[in-house]
């Protein structure tokens, strides 16, 4: 089967997709977007978090065919060119990354939060990131990065 969808603003096509493939596999292995990670494959860990038509979804739970004609945004599409998105920059500055496996999913989820809430409370940050598990950091640095991201966006606007 052929799957055609927009990924990070550009039209992409994958051929010979077998019917039971997840969108995650198609993105990573067929379309060249390995940013979204494959960890639990069960919708639990959030490392495969993407935007699908502007709302967050776990790419591991979406059938490839269900992305046909739709818009996908992955971690690779958060920044523009060589310029990192604010949240990517603040993850670096806050030291919110250790092994980095959870990071792409957390970045997409945190990006979505800051698009929806200019100044989220800690409780709102925790709620927004509740579907993203990190085995390394203990989350404090991640909280710090999101708070910093919110402040940075507020001062920039």
């Amino acid at each position, binding site marked *: 089967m052929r799957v055609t969808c927009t990924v990070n603003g550009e039209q992409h096509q994958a051929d010979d997709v077998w019917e039971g493939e997840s969108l995650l596999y198609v993105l990573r292995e067929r379309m060249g977007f390995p940013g979204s990670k494959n960890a639990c494959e069960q919708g639990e860990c959030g490392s495969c978090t993407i935007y699908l038509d502007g709302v967050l979804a776990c790419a591991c*739970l979406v059938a490839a065919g269900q992305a046909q004609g739709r818009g996908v945004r992955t971690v690779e599409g958060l920044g523009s060119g060589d310029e990192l998105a604010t949240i990517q920059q603040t993850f670096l500055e806050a030291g919110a990354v250790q092994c980095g496996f959870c990071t792409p999913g957390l970045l997409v989820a945190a990006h979505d939060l800051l698009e929806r809430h200019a100044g989220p409370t800690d409780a709102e940050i925790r709620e927004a990131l509740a579907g993203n598990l990190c085995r390394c950091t203990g989350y404090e640095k991640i909280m710090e990065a999101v708070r910093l991201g919110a402040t940075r966006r507020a001062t920039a606007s």
Partner: protein
Amino acid sequence: MDLPGITEVADARLGIWRPGDAWLAGGTWLFSEPQPALTRLLDLHAFGWTALQVSPDGLDIAATCTLAELARQEFPPWQAASLVGQCCAALLGSFKVWNTATVGGNICLALPAGPMISLTAALDGVAEIWGTGGAVRRIPVADFVTGPGRCRLRPGELLRSVHLPIGALQCATAFRQLSLSALGRSAAVVIGRRSPSDGALVITLTAATTRPVQLRFPAPPGPDGLLATLAAAAPRYHDDVHGAPAWREAITRQLALEVLDELERL
């Protein structure tokens, strides 16, 4: 995850049901575990059903309506509307899962902790079922789910929608949910509703029990009356890692008393 056994994903309107088929709704359960028995998925989105329709008779929820669409909807000033958010939040998955998971998928999966079963059973929802050859039948959601992972769908049948009657939507409601851990899968959900017109009370038990159980009273029965009716109903309590039957029974009694207390004071 990838489902290597699947050889075809077809438009649900065109597929003629055969063994090895499954209806594909949000896919959040289908794609979350291996499906060795399945070879084909029939995608229900092809029907293009309107997610939610409000009418003077109540609310029609398409099977393909997502939990996110339901949670976002602004309803008329129905007292029972608050139950929608409470039940959506009772799904263990994050809001990312809400964005994709459907009401119909949740009901047909028939897990005891299916929050859309809790919601629609508590509001006397009626499931519209489409059979092969155009047959349509209707079953109350409370009877539709028959046990853990079991429902009254026959091979080839699909759930088209659930109708929530206006009378139930206008009731005051009380909601209690408990899990072994703070954000764990529901071990008990008890929902009460009280009619503003005649004071009648309906208490619906889900999650703790293997299938929905409804206790109906013409007027609030008092704690002893409630516990006696609950004992007479003799529900079967579910047994899995999310709670032992004896514990589920104890918390169900407690939550039912709390619900009664809340609704009695209205």
